C-alpha cells in the first residue's frame, strides 16, 4: 500500500453521509410530527438513532477504515452500558412498584 498521509477519502462520501443524516433526522422528526405511539414510535426512533450514530462513527469519525484492535477497544466497552440499562430498568420498576403500593 502506498503511503498516504492520514485519512483521505473522496468528498462525495462525506456529502452523501451528510445528506443521509438529514434524511434520517427528518424521518425521526416526522415520527413525532405524525404522533406515532407505542412500539411503532419507539422502534422507529431507536432505528433512526442507530443508523445516524453508525454513519457518524463509521464515516465522519473514520472508524470504518481503522484497524479492528482500535474499533473493538472503543466500541465494545460502551456496549456493556446495556447491562447497566438492564439493571436500572429492574431498579426503577421496583421503585415504581413501591411508590404505587405505599404512596399511591
Amino acid at each position, binding site marked *: 500500500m502506498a503511503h498516504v498521509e*492520514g485519512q483521505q477519502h473522496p468528498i462525495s462520501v462525506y456529502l452523501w453521509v451528510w445528506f443521509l443524516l438529514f434524511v434520517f433526522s427528518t424521518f425521526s*422528526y416526522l415520527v413525532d410530527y405524525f404522533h406515532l405511539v407505542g412500539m411503532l414510535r419507539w422502534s422507529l426512533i431507536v432505528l433512526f438513532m442507530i443508523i445516524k450514530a453508525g454513519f457518524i462513527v463509521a464515516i465522519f469519525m473514520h472508524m470504518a477504515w481503522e484497524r*479492528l484492535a482500535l474499533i473493538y477497544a472503543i466500541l465494545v466497552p460502551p456496549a456493556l452500558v446495556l447491562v447497566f440499562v438492564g439493571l436500572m430498568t429492574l431498579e426503577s420498576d421496583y421503585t415504581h412498584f413501591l411508590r404505587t403500593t405505599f404512596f399511591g
Partner: protein
Amino acid sequence: MAETATGSMARPDGLQGIVADWASDQRSFKNVPWGKAMMWIFLLSDTFIFSCFLLSYMTVRMSTTVPWPNPSEVFALHIGGQDIPLILIAIMTFVLISSSGTMAMAVRFGYAHDRKKSTILILLTAMFGATFVGMQAFEWTKLILEGVRPWGNPWGAPQFGSTFFMITGFHGTHVSIGVIFLLIVARKVWRGDYDTARRGFFTSRKGNYEIVETMGLYWHFVDLVWVFIFAFFYLW
C-alpha cells in the same frame, strides 16, 4: 518516532490481528497517531458520562408516578398562528449535523494541504456550533420564563427540569468548548503552523494535520451525543 518495525512486515487481519496488535510488546494502535488514540480514549470516557446522565434520566422517568411532561408540546414554538411541535429542536439538529459535515470536509482538505478551504470549513463549523449554542440559550430562556426549574415545572414530574438542564447543559458546554478549540485550530491552519511545524504556544510541540482530524473526532462526538439526546429526551 518511538516505534519499532512498522511497515516492514505484513500484519494479520481480523481476530488474529487484535491478538497480534495487543500482544506485540509495541504500541497497540498501529497506523494511528498517539493524539488520535488518546482522543478516542477520552471520548470513550465521555461516552460513559453521558451514558450515566441518560441512564439516570431513564431511571427517574420510569420510576415516577407523576405523568412526564410531553416534550412534543413543551418544546413547541408558536409560529404563524399555530404550534409547531419540536421545531426548534429539529432546526438545532440540522445545524449540528451540518457542522459535522463541514468538519469532515475540513479534515479532508487539511490532509490535502489546502489551507484556505480547510480554514474556511473549520470557521463554518465553529459558526454552526455557535448558532447551536445560541438557539439552546433561547430554549433555556423560554423554559425558565415558563417556570421550569430543576426542582419543578408546571406540567408534571419535577425530575423533568433537573434532567433537562443537566443533560442539555452538559452537552451545550461541550459544544461551547468545541467552538473555542475550533477557532484555535482554524487560526493555526490559516497561519500554516502544520506545514511549517511551528511549535504550539501551550505544549511546545510541533503539530501536523492529524490535529485537525483529532479536533474533528471531538466535534463529531458532540454531534453523536446529540443524536442520542434527541432520540431519548426529545422524541421519547
